[in-house]
């Protein structure tokens, strides 16, 4: 009875809802595949796209539209260790395991993300380094989890694996946007995602995702595979290489 009533109400409201239709994002990236070769020292990605407003009407002035782009690396299961001074030396003391944490996280936005949306929305969409939703494998106290999460963010920020780039998204004529983000050489291989969020008046209006594959190719791929699948042969090759190089150099030096 009630369900039918709601259904009818919705049906009647359809034209209204369509008039209020949300804008749509059409995102793209400059590179869908990143190949790690011997000379790989990181990759610069251009993330760009268009905002399609319903009916082609631009929003009224005063309601500024913002864009945030989150580039995430494959999730990893990790252990964070905390050093403590014991008997004069720094040793790993406490540790916390996380079932999944992004191996790489970069957020670019047209204005600082904290000014765009509130903490709750940031937490829902994982917008910003202080809003990452990590899942600890143990039930440690919230304060401890907080400490370790901050430690992880700080450590990864220093190594360039976690990046916050406020004002890195440039919006042209309210319809085109672009941002540049760098993937450092230290990232693991796997599927990266670039999520784009359209934000206005503190709300996320639209979101769209693009995948980017990062993988080793050629010699690098061959070596990684060999080390993993043919460990004995790989080890023998390393040993033979070192013995031959050493022996060759010795002979060469003696002949001179």
């Amino acid at each position: 009875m009630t369900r039918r009533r709601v259904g009818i109400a919705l049906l009647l409201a359809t034209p209204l809802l369509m008039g209020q239709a949300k804008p749509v994002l059409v995102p793209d990236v400059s590179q869908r595949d990143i190949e790690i070769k011997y000379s790989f020292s990181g990759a610069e990605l251009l993330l760009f796209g268009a905002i399609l407003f319903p009916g082609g009407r631009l929003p009224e002035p005063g309601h500024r539209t913002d864009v945030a782009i989150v580039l995430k690396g494959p999730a990893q299961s990790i252990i964070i260790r905390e050093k403590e001074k014991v008997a004069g030396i720094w040793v790993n003391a406490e540790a916390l395991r996380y079932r999944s944490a992004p191996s790489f996280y970069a957020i670019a936005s047209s204005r600082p993300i904290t000014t765009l949306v509130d903490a709750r929305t940031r937490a829902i969409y994982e917008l910003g380094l202080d809003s990452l939703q990590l899942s600890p494998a143990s039930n440690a106290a919230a304060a401890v989890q907080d400490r370790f999460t901050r430690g992880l963010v700080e450590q990864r920020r220093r190594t360039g694996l976690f990046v916050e780039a406020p004002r890195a998204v440039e919006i042209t004529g309210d319809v085109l946007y672009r941002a540049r983000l760098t993937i450092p050489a230290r990232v693991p291989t796997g599927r990266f995602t670039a999520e784009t969020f359209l934000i206005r008046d503190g709300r996320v209006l639209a979101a769209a995702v693009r995948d980017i594959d990062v993988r080793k190719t050629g010699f690098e791929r061959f070596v990684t595979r060999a080390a993993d699948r043919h460990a004995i042969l790989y080890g023998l090759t390393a040993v033979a290489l070192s013995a031959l190089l050493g022996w060759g150099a010795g002979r060469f030096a003696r002949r001179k």
Partner: protein
Amino acid sequence: MDVYLPIANLSVNALVMIALGAGVGLLSGMFGVGGGFLTTPLLIVYGIPPTVAAASAASQVTGASVSGVFAHFRRGGVDVKMGVILVAGGIGGSMIGAFLFRFLQASGQIDTVIGIIYVVLLGWIGALMATEAIRSIRVLHGAAAPRPRRRRHHPLVASLPWRTRFYASGLYISPLAPFLLGLGIGMLTVLLGVGGGFILVPAMIYLLGMATSVVVGTSLFQTLFVTMIATMVHATTTKAVDIVLAALLLVGSVVGAQVGARFANRARPEYLRLALAIVVLLVCLRVALGLAWRPDEIYTVELS
């Protein structure tokens, strides 16, 4: 010139790695040590993960010792029987070392343990070498030479059973002594990525009392085989041997070693030994400071 290391998963400057190998090779040629005790800590300081550093440094020592072994063989400076027993001990030691490595890695203490072992060993050996070198330099400058110590093995060694003759070394001792020695060195090789020559040589002289003419050659013989085994152990257990990194280090070190060997022929051995002692003590100091100073990274992240 950046080169991507496929196992370490990061890119390094190839020229820096070759230079590092050359520097270590220079020292190893000059002093007749493998130089692994320098490579591993330097790689860690550069930012290579400790596991990859220890696993790849061992193969550099293989390259540095191979031509030395041939040279000593030619002039009969290798006690093969002694060497084989040392290597047999080394095989057992590397197995134990691999087990320890994994255990320490799982409990998160591997870096600290590596650091402490380095400080203790380098401090001890460095001090020993420094006092010995200073004493012989004073003799050079006219001080009275101390009465030569009678070559004798340690009383503990004499108490071991099943004595046998080692003709080249001029010894009649139990094979258990070199076996246990090899066991200890094998463990260190896997844990630290060092050849262990800097411990083995004094142990052969002061503990076993071997004839000095075969000490260096036999030590190199043992180093060659045990580093090969350590590389195999790492390749099959930790899978952390980076062949690209190893190749870069090797190219530098084999060239450096030849240059160093030439230089060593012209320098006074007493001063060389003092210089090596200073290098060893400096590395020891650097590692000790690394343990005691508040590290930049209180938090470390590893994959599980």
